[in-house]
């Protein structure tokens, strides 16, 4: 028969204090900043190298990141990979509108070797023609696949509306632009931009921080500090206006995207805005998710989050909704944004959002790789991890009034830039009942 289970939901234990790791830092003469954190859980080391790469040509930058480990004058792509494997490791590169990021890991006993290979490609990557050609076709394939995907198309339309003439307005290259890239152009971009000035190397693991920084200095101290920097202008303010409707004939779902104003991590409103976003749609138990997913079933996975970039931040709201409920889904979205911007939240839901925010902070720092990524991201905003203590304190003390004030300031639907990708013949009229609409 029914076994004896315990009926009562247990009380919450006392909240544990945030433990912040100690960061050791040194700026090398060539401009490279090295941050090292000892986290001896396992004998591994995580490596993150962040190099400012704003305003770089998109197609060339993407190919550069994909072929950086594809050979030097002395070594082939296989030899480089084998050398990294001999220390149980691997490194790879990626690029976004702000930076080029090289990340990887390996056995801590192989840190010197990892750093040597890193230095070899940073100073001597050869971008062999056959490797560039292979990666070029792979990248073109990926771009072509993306162009058939509604989430990509909706993102492209939203960025265009948000950023106008700012470099962030376009973040993926066209297939034709990639096809036109020659190895010499990648080498030129490498010579011009892949330099230590403004770059940050983060090392996290079972290391002695001073000795790890010495090793980094030995390997990367001679990395050429020349080249040029490119400054990103601040992002323009959002210009609310009619909803931009992008037609995708016979789409079975509509992609709804909204951008709202947000503040940088260093701004005093950052913590309260984070809480306001959680209450609205920032996690599973939020108002908007409960409304349009759990209650009405309009969508599978709506999401809302703050995106921080070097030149500015924005709050992005996204949902894929069934075509026939596109109008009602927009109505509920306006309603939940407006409700939070107009009425203070309940104590209970604020507490739950606060627990979630503090809990994810703890979980995010509990592994070497999570810690390394966090330290690198924060360094990109000019911050160190000790800033998290301040942030956690702000999260802990935010009141209902603080959150209501932030919601009124940042989440008001009247300030939203809205884009919708869907079957215009079916969704345009329902949308016009709620807001002005312009065709893209």
């Amino acid at each position, binding site marked *: 028969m029914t076994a004896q289970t315990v009926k009562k939901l247990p009380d919450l234990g006392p909240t544990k204090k945030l433990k912040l790791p100690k960061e050791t830092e040194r700026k090398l003469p060539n401009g490279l900043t090295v941050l090292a954190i000892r986290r001896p859980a396992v004998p591994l080391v995580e490596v993150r190298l962040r190099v400012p790469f704003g305003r770089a040509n998109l197609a060339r930058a993407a190919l550069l990141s994909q072929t950086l480990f594809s050979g030097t004058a002395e070594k082939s792509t296989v030899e480089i990979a084998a050398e990294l494997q001999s220390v149980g490791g691997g490194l790879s590169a990626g690029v976004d509108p702000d930076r080029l990021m090289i990340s990887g890991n390996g*056995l801590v006993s192989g840190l010197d070797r990892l750093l040597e290979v890193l230095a070899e490609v940073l100073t001597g990557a050869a971008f062999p023609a056959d490797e560039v050609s292979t990666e070029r076709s792979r990248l073109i394939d990926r771009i072509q696949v993306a162009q058939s995907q509604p989430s990509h198309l909706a993102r492209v339309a939203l960025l265009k509306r948000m950023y106008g003439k700012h470099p962030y307005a376009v973040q993926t290259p066209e297939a034709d632009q990639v096809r036109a890239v020659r190895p010499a152009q990648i080498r030129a971009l490498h010579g011009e931009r892949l330099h230590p000035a403004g770059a940050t190397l983060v090392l996290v693991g079972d290391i002695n921080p001073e000795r790890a920084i010495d090793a980094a200095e030995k390997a990367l101290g001679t990395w050429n500090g020349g080249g040029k920097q490119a400054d990103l202008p601040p992002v323009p303010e959002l210009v609310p206006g009619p909803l931009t409707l992008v037609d995708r004939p016979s789409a079975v779902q509509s992609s709804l995207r909204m951008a709202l104003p947000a503040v940088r991590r260093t701004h005093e409103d950052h913590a309260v805005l984070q809480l306001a976003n959680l209450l609205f749609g920032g996690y599973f138990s939020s108002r908007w998710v409960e409304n349009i997913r759990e209650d009405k079933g309009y969508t599978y996975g709506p999401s809302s989050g703050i995106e921080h970039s070097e030149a500015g931040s924005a709050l992005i709201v996204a949902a894929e909704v069934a075509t026939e409920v596109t109008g009602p889904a927009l109505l509920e979205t306006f309603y939940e944004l407006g409700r939070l911007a107009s009425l203070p939240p309940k104590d209970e839901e604020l507490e739950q959002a606060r627990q979630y925010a503090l809990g994810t902070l703890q979980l995010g720092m509990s592994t070497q790789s999570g810690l390394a990524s966090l330290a690198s991201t924060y360094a990109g905003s000019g911050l160190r991890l000790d800033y998290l203590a301040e942030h956690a304190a702000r999260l802990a003390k935010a009141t209902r009034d603080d959150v209501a004030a932030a919601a009124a300031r940042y989440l008001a639907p009247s300030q939203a830039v809205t884009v919708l990708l869907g079957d215009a013949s079916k969704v345009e009229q329902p949308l016009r009942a709620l807001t002005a609409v312009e065709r893209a």
Partner: protein
Amino acid sequence: MVARSDTVVPMPPNGFPWPIETARLDNGLRVVVSEDRTAPVVAVNLWYDVGSRHEPDGQTGFAHLFEHLMFEGSVHVPKTEHMRLIQGSGGSLNATTNPDRTNYFETVPAEHLELALWLEADRMGGLVPALTQETLDNQREVVKNERRQRYENVPYGDAWLRLLPLLYPPGHPYHHATIGSMADLNAAALETFQAFHSTYYAPNNAVLSVVGDATAADVFALADKYFGGLAPRADIPPAPDGTRPAPVTAAVRETVTADVPAPRIYLAHRTYPFGSREYDAVTVLATALGNGRGSRLYQRLADGARLAQPDYVSAYGVDLAHAPAPLIVSATARDGIDAAALEAGLVEVVDELAAGITADELDRAKALLATAWWRQVSTVAGRADSLSRYATQFGDPARAGERLPAWQAVTLDEVTAVATEALRPETRVTLTYLPEDSRLPEESA
């Protein structure tokens, strides 16, 4: 060539560099605790010793469908509340089913440990009263969509479903895939699932591991508080014995023409059970053969002969413990390369393994496996899953510490021996995918 590795692979002094404490409740639940105060986070992990190998004919897919039902509410936890409570605490959670077992796990801030134990105990002891026909119908549709999304609607997605019946004879517990058949899922009755829970979801058929910021004494007391009242089950039926399947006597081939972008070949062999000395050698062999751009497959087929697409060469063992586990080697043709040329290239590389691998390859494979092992145990969640695995499958969580030293001790001769014995062409399963348009010339002929 690359210089021989001089890297010292770090080894834990006692196999497993964290404390392990175990207790058994009166109802048979085994509790494993490994304290680690590095971060204020705790992982809770439960292994139930039930998987698709327990499913009789006509009930394939039941263990996995059942895993879904475990999130749909229990006697004191309303539908969707489990998810809401864990995520609302900042935690993460999931569950998986494979042929051997079903596991459930969550990682939460340490102050929410008691909540996680309460939730797990409620669905271990109190699922049946909350299980309704509506929930079953709903989750059956979810699983059928999962089958479509992961296996049917994806190029090559059904390879695993096709390989298993070719590798294991009818009646063998690994003959069918965990996802099961649509027909069996459609026929599933509520009573069958109620019986399934009563039979297998008993405290004496489970291991509970808790790793992180909690003391063993506290965890044992909480485990007793929440699980102690659950009744054990006396006679849990074992899965059919699959440890000695009938020997393979001839190579088997299957060719599938499907909506795939390029020809792909799978070569599969039955090897040895996970946990055996021989399987450790197979693991080292598979790593040298298929892991990353330094691997033999990449060098020979992607970089050298340019037969295979660089992103899709692979070799891996599937870590199953209750019968000889499979080793699967795969490559996908580049533009302009036909299946025959690709297969010839792949077979040549695999057949040459009987001559052994080089000392460099052995060293690199061991270094990669060391990183993989340490990464697995670098998170409290990974560590908890390992402890549950070794307690469930080998009777002692501390045996989690044996694997890394065992891999590091594998010799060149042992690799040669398993390659010679297990990869014989006459025991090989070859599965070939051909794009649909490659069939056109034949049809028009």
